[in-house]
């Protein structure tokens, strides 16, 4: 209790307000002992009382005390953490929600992350392609993914430096254990390029789709399962299909699914090393090399390990 009251006392002192420590302690004590308020709640309530009393804006008290740490995009993995980041706005999306002012992607040399600039954020509109220093943005986890939110405590300043967007490449070796639905011969929406499900786009409804090839594979090394997306060029190279031959095969069978079946027969169960960039839980594969043989040296080393024991 003493600690909390001293902490509060110190923080107000930093803001240039002198409050009597006894007063703080009395109030805390009354709430905690008499009214059974949990300590943290009591603290908040006491702080709010003094803020009102001395007419101090709340965010001055809560953010003025310590500077958020400077971080890289790839390090943003703690829900609720306040950070500063330097990054480039690489994409802005259409946004329809009235309380949101802008949505898009921010990137630095380590990765890419989604951002939401809320209507309450008081800085000017962000421009695509411009690099900024963002202060006091908050990391938020939603559905297992991280994003950053900019609110009324946040600020953004344009910087001269042109941040190079990193697609830090990542390699994963494992067995291809599954190819998921939505792979093989698919149709995309001509307007937004999204894959269609049952001939309809999530955004634009029933449309006349454009054919494409892609593979959503799961690579598994026995320790982690990695989702990987293989685009048309690479899918063609791996399977020997061309978009045209895949369409012809599907037309023959009166079923788009046969392309997926054929691809599964060729790829599933084999070992590959996939290299590419990671976006959220997916690995966007740039190259994929089959592991075709056992390394004799590795074999000898493993035998040695197994026999020493």
């Amino acid at each position, binding site marked *: 209790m003493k600690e909390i009251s001293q902490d509060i006392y110190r923080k107000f002192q930093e803001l240039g307000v002198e409050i009597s420590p006894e007063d703080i302690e009395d109030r805390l004590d009354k709430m905690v002992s008499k009214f059974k308020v949990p300590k943290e709640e009591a603290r908040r309530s006491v702080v709010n009382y003094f803020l009102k009393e001395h007419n101090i804006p709340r965010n001055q008290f809560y953010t003025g005390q310590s500077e958020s740490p400077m971080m890289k995009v790839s390090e943003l993995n703690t829900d609720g953490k306040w950070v500063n980041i330097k990054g480039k706005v690489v994409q802005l999306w259409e946004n329809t929600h009235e309380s949101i002012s802008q949505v898009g992607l921010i990137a630095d040399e380590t990765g890419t992350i989604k951002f939401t600039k809320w209507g309450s954020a008081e800085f000017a509109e962000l421009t695509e392609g411009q690099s900024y220093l963002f202060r006091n943005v908050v990391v938020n986890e939603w559905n297992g993914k991280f994003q950053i939110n900019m609110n009324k405590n946040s600020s953004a300043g344009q910087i001269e430096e042109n941040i190079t967007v990193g697609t830090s490449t990542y390699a994963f070796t494992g067995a291809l254990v599954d190819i998921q639905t939505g792979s093989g011969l698919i149709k995309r929406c001509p307007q937004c390029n999204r894959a269609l499900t049952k001939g309809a786009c999530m955004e634009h409804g029933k449309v006349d789709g454009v054919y494409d090839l892609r593979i959503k594979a799961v690579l598994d090394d*026995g320790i982690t399962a990695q989702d990987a997306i293989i685009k048309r060029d690479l899918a063609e190279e791996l399977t020997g299909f061309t978009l045209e031959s895949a369409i012809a095969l599907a037309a023959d069978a009166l079923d788009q699914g046969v392309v997926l079946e054929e691809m599964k027969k060729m790829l599933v169960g084999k070992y590959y090393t996939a290299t590419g960039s990671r976006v959220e839980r997916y690995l966007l594969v740039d190259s994929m090399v089959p592991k075709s043989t056992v390394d004799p040296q590795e074999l000898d080393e493993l035998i040695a390990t197994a026999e020493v024991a």
Partner: protein
Amino acid sequence: MAGYSREVARRVFAQEFRESTLTFKDGDDQYAPQYLMTPTGARVNRIFIVGTLIEKEDIGTDSEYWRGRVIDPTGSFMIYAGQYQPEAAQVLAECETPAFVAIVGKPSTYTTGEGDVLTSVRPESIHVVDGQTRDIWVVDTAKKTLTRLKELEGGSDSPDVEKAKEYYAPDVKHYYSMVSQALQSLKESY
């Protein structure tokens, strides 16, 4: 981490798989995933096997129900595929034996009247592969098993290792020699 994440396919040799008897659920929920704990502490909800399919038989009475035997250098896996594993059952129906196959599946156990626990695999998919892939799998599985054995010896504090130790009191030497035997079998070709 919130949300769903796919169960990793573990690598376990047939001998160790056959000697596994401990199954448990992660939580009380009806839909909580079921695991098979192996003697070296692999927590298996999904398994990846590459081996030789040497026998197959349709043992179903009304509908097709396929039983297959897949061998690796240490022993054999029994696999069962029926109407609820249509893709796998179809491959079993069509393929010839012997053949190298890669199987992704779920472990399942059956306790006999005498109290013996029999393990088998319910395949999600079976694909015919080449002999190279099978050899790579043997090395891969050996490597994963050695890592688990080291953790067993090294007094790791992972709950899986603790659980395996407590339940099986595994003879570490026995499994080291299994791995060694599996690797030696590749020696002729490399």
